[in-house]
C-alpha cells in the first residue's frame, strides 16, 4: 500500500449536509473531509449510515427531493454552487463515478463502444477515429482482452467482473482526477473483488487520480485505502490513516466494527457483534446517535452530540469516552 503522495487536498468537503423531504430527514449531517492527490479515502459504515449519499452529494447526484448544503471545494470552486453547465463539465470529465451493480449501471441496449463514446463525446474533442482508438486503449487499460471485438458487444454479453471493468473504462474515459466508487465490489465474487480493487489501485497509480471508496467491508478498506472515515447515522465519527484506526480505534463504533471482522493468523476468539441496528433517519436518538448501542455510553452521550475533535492532523474522533474506549484495548 502506498501512502498519500502529497498533503495538498484536491477535494475539500466542508460541513456537507444532505436533507430529504423538506428537511425532515437528514441523511448526511455536517460532514467534512479532504482527499489528497493520489489518495484513496475509504468511507465506511453500515447500511443507512449516509456514506453513499455523502458520495453522491459531492457531485450533487441526489434525487430532486434532496437538498445539499455546505461546501465542496474542487479546483478552487464550490461544486454545490456551480451552474448546471459547469457541473456537467466536472461530472464525468474531472470527477467520475462507478456503481455497485455494474449490470444496472450500464445501458442494456447500447453496445459498450457507444457507451464509452458517449463520455468521450461529452468531455473531449476527439473525432470518430480518435474515440475508437481511445476506447480500445481503455479496454486494454482495464484488462478486457480482444478489445476490438468486445467493444461491439452489449453489457449482457459480459460477466459481472467484466461489466465492472467496462463501467470503470467508461468512468475513466476522459481522465478524471477523482474517482468516486460506490461499493464497486459488493456485487461481485470474492476473487473478482480482489481483481477489481487491484485494478482501481493500479489505475490510481497510473493516472495519478484520487479515489473515494464507499464500502461496508473493512477488509476492502484495509486492502485498498490510505485513510478512512467511519460514518454513523449521517455523521463522521472517526477519521485517520487506515493503520492508525485499525491499530487503535478511538470510537466505540469503530471498535465494534473492527471487532466483528474475523482475522486469520490470530488465536481463535469469539467474534464481537454490535447489538441492535442503526437508527432510522426519522428516529435518530438525542445526543450521540450511537449511544443506545454503545457499551461505554454515559449520561453526557445521551444529552449532547459529541463534536469531532482533532487528535492530530488527519486523525479525529467524536466520542466523549474515548479514553475508556482506548483503555478497553484493540478488539483485534
Amino acid at each position: 500500500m502506498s501512502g498519500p503522495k502529497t498533503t495538498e487536498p484536491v477535494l475539500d468537503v466542508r460541513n456537507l449536509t444532505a436533507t430529504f423531504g423538506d428537511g425532515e430527514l437528514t441523511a448526511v449531517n455536517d460532514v467534512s473531509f479532504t482527499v489528497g492527490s493520489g489518495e484513496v479515502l475509504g468511507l465506511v459504515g453500515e447500511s443507512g449510515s449516509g456514506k453513499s449519499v455523502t458520495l453522491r452529494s459531492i457531485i450533487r447526484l441526489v434525487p430532486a427531493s434532496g437538498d445539499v448544503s455546505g461546501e465542496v471545494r474542487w479546483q478552487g470552486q464550490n461544486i454545490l454552487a456551480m451552474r448546471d453547465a459547469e457541473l456537467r463539465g466536472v461530472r464525468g470529465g474531472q470527477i467520475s463515478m462507478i456503481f455497485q451493480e455494474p449490470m444496472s449501471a450500464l445501458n442494456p441496449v447500447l453496445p459498450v463502444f457507444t457507451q464509452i463514446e458517449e463520455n468521450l463525446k461529452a468531455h473531449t474533442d476527439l473525432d470518430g477515429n480518435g474515440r475508437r482508438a481511445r476506447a480500445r486503449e481503455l479496454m486494454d487499460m482495464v484488462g478486457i482482452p480482444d478489445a476490438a471485438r468486445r467493444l461491439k458487444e452489449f453489457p449482457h454479453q459480459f460477466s459481472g467482473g467484466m461489466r465492472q471493468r467496462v463501467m470503470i473504462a467508461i468512468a475513466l474515459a476522459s481522465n478524471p482526477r477523482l474517482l468516486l466508487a460506490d461499493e464497486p465490489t459488493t456485487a461481485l465474487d470474492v476473487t473478482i473483488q480482489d481483481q477489481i480493487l487491484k485494478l482501481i489501485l493500479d489505475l490510481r497509480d497510473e493516472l495519478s487520480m484520487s479515489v473515494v471508496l464507499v464500502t461496508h467491508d473493512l477488509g476492502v478498506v484495509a486492502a485498498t485505502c490510505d485513510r478512512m472515515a467511519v460514518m454513523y447515522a449521517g455523521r463522521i465519527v472517526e477519521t485517520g490513516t487506515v493503520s492508525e484506526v485499525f491499530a487503535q480505534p478511538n470510537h466505540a463504533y469503530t471498535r465494534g466494527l473492527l471487532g466483528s471482522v474475523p482475522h486469520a493468523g490470530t488465536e481463535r476468539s469469539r467474534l464481537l457483534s454490535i447489538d441492535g441496528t442503526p437508527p432510522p433517519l426519522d428516529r435518530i436518538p438525542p445526543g450521540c446517535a450511537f449511544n443506545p448501542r454503545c457499551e461505554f455510553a454515559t449520561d453526557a452521550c445521551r444529552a449532547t452530540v459529541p463534536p469531532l475533535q482533532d487528535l492530530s492532523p488527519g486523525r479525529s474522533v467524536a466520542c466523549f469516552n474515548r479514553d475508556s474506549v482506548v483503555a478497553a484495548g484493540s478488539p483485534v
Partner: protein
Amino acid sequence: MTDLAPPSERPRRLALPRPLILGGTILLLSIAVATFPTVFAPYEPDAFDYNALLQGPSMAHPMGTDNFGRDVLSRVIHAYTIDMQIAIFATIFPFFFGTIIGALVGYAGGIAETLFGRVVDAVITFPFLVLVIAIVSVLGPGLVNMYIAIGVVGWVFYARITAAEIKVQKRLDYADAGRAMGYTHMRIIFRHLLPNAITPAVVYWMTDMALAILLGSSLGYLGLGAQPPAAEWGVQIADGKNFMATAWWISVFPGVAIVLTGLGFSLTGDGLAELLRTKR
C-alpha cells in the same frame, strides 16, 4: 459435443417469433399491393360495366361486381393504397409527437406530469370515435382532416405509455450513471432512456395502425373520411349496405380485407413485443 462456448461466441440463432413471421408476411404483401395496385387488379377500380351489374363471384369477377358493374376485387385492391396510407399517416404523427412528449413528461415529473395527467383524463373521458367524429365535423370531411382529428387525440395514448416507461427507467442506475458522467438531460432522455422505454409504444403503434384502419373505414362508412367514388373499404361497405340481402359480396370482401390487414398489424405487434424484450 457439448456446447461450452460462452454466450458471445455462440452463433446467434435467427429465431424470429412466429407471429412476427406471419404478421410480417401479411403486411409486406399488403404494402406490395398498396404500392402497385395496378399490377394486382384485373380491372380499373372505377370502370363501369353496365352489362355486369350486381354479379356474384365468378371467374371473370372473383369477388363479384357492384351496382355500377365495378369489379369488387379491383376496388378492394385499389383500396389498399388508401387504407394503408390511413394506417401510417393517422398514426405516425401521434407516435413521434406522443413519444417525445411522454419521454419529456415522464423524465420531468412534478407539475408537468400533473398537468399531463389532466389532459389524459380529459381525452380518455370521451369515447375516441365520438371525439374524432366531433373534430372531423368541425373541420369538414376528408382524409387530411381525418388525419388531423386522429392526431390531435391519438398522441395522448403514446405519451401516456412512454411516460410510464420513462418513469421506471429514470430511476435505474444507468440513468444515474449518465448524470454522473455529465450528460445533458436531453442526451439522457433520448439517447439513453428512450431506447429502453420505446418498446411498448412501438407495440402499441402496430395495434394502433389496425385501429386506424378500422377507424378510417368507419369514418369512410359514415361519409366523414374518404369520399366516394374513391375505393376505400369503409366507403365500399357503405356502398353495398343497401344490397346486403341480394349482393353480400360488395360489403363482405372489403370487410375481410380489413380483418386480414388488422390481423397482420396485430401479429406483427405481438411478434415485435417478443423480439424486443430487453435482454438482461
